[in-house]
């Protein structure tokens, strides 16, 4: 199970890569492992306003439907258009190929509420 150091994480198992005012978002290795085979991904359109803690997309495994929550508020400036055609990338490359959206963050202070890698790993271990 990987927990890259450079990322921040939410309690709903999304990861965030923050670069200037742009945040790239996906779901964690822990999340994809818990879901099992991912067979469907639904993402918002560019220009959508997302709100921290509110669902922005959907991931479906063979067995179940799960919402994906926005870690931060802002405007969606880019979506991974390849992902809906190859949802299995969520399993094979959760931190790279399976990035989901890029958000122009409206409130950098929201970053403070996210977990760092060590805290998130501990959180996952306590949840398991």
């Amino acid at each position, binding site marked *: 199970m990987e927990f890259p150091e450079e990322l921040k994480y939410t309690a709903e198992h999304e990861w965030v890569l923050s670069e200037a005012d742009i945040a790239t978002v996906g779901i964690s290795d822990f999340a994809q492992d818990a879901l*099992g*085979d991912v*067979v*469907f991904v*639904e993402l918002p359109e560019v220009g959508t306003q997302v709100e921290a803690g509110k669902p922005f997309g*959907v991931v*479906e*495994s*063979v*067995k179940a*439907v799960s919402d994906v929550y926005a870690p931060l508020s802002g405007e969606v400036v880019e979506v991974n258009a390849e992902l*809906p055609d190859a949802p299995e990338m969520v399993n094979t490359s959760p931190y790279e190929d399976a990035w989901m959206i890029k958000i122009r963050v409206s409130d950098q202070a929201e970053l403070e509420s996210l977990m760092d890698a060590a805290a998130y790993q501990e959180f996952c271990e306590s949840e398991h």
Partner: protein
Amino acid sequence: MLKKTPLNRIHRDLAARMVDFGGWDMPVQYTGVIDEHLATREAAGLFDVSHMGEVEVRGAGALAYIQHLTINDAAKLEIGQVQYSAICYPHGGIVDDVTLYRFAADRFLFCVNASNTDKDFAWMEQVLEEGDFPDVELRNLSDDYAQLALQGPAAETILARLTTHNLKDIRYYHFAEGQVAGVPTIISRTGYTGEDGFELYFAAEAAESVWTALMAAGSEEGIKPCGLGARDTLRLEMKFALYGHELSSEISPLEAGLGWITKFDKGDFIGRDALLKQKEKGVPRRLAGLVMTDRGIPRDGYPVFAGEEQVGTVTSGTMSPCLKVGIALALVRPECSGVGKELSIGIRNRQVACRVAKTPFIKNWRD
């Protein structure tokens, strides 16, 4: 406290993901649902189905009692044969769907759904007490038996290594009593996957040794342990009904596509009057197989539309691992159930296009 099958330790050693399935601690997957599904279609899968219930019926009145209790014609059942059947309430709703084994003129065994076992047994006792069936004895043997399903095109090859019984003599929906890995076993050529294969019943104490022997015997063919996830996707690709989804006390066998086991000409049985009335009047809804023609995965409870009008509800849905599209079973108005009919399914806030398909969905998958 969840009930455990005698293979619980093996599932945990294999790091299976466990779930509460109708009060049972069961493996939902080991290596992954798609991996296990394809292994069963292409080679062999081994499923722990020890949670299933077994009820023995014996005595001179056993056949008369079973004819009254079930909707299929048990008189047609030969010794050594298995029959798919169902038990209905007087109003025509389904108590359970079952397989029935005939061991002798006066001895039968029901295999029933795990989560229905207690309900079924109580119903069977009630029917026995209220009717006039002298010399019938019912025994709930569910805790005595372990059950494994060995399914897939390599199943016969693998099982043949562990038994001296000539498996070619056991035809589909027949069984024999023999030994598997030295353990006395009911070897039944049945299953819930659409593949050739066997369901094996034997003493619960022998479960670990039989499981281990089968896994070893099938290693060359690539046998895989399979969980309830693959069991569900495999049966869905075949349009096999599952109690609690396509079958319930509020759904009749005629609606659920089980007219073929509803034998009105065998004499009276529980539910016959109500079902006959429904047959004459026409069923209000019919089970249809739907294939998504646009991207999306149907799920239990999603509404089915013809145009803007809701005409039914999805009872089970998944992504088909073989076809790689969403498939569903749905109870829809009869006029919407014809093959080729264009419908849509409400998935979250959208209507996603689908079509009534020929079933089994995977009929031509290998071509």
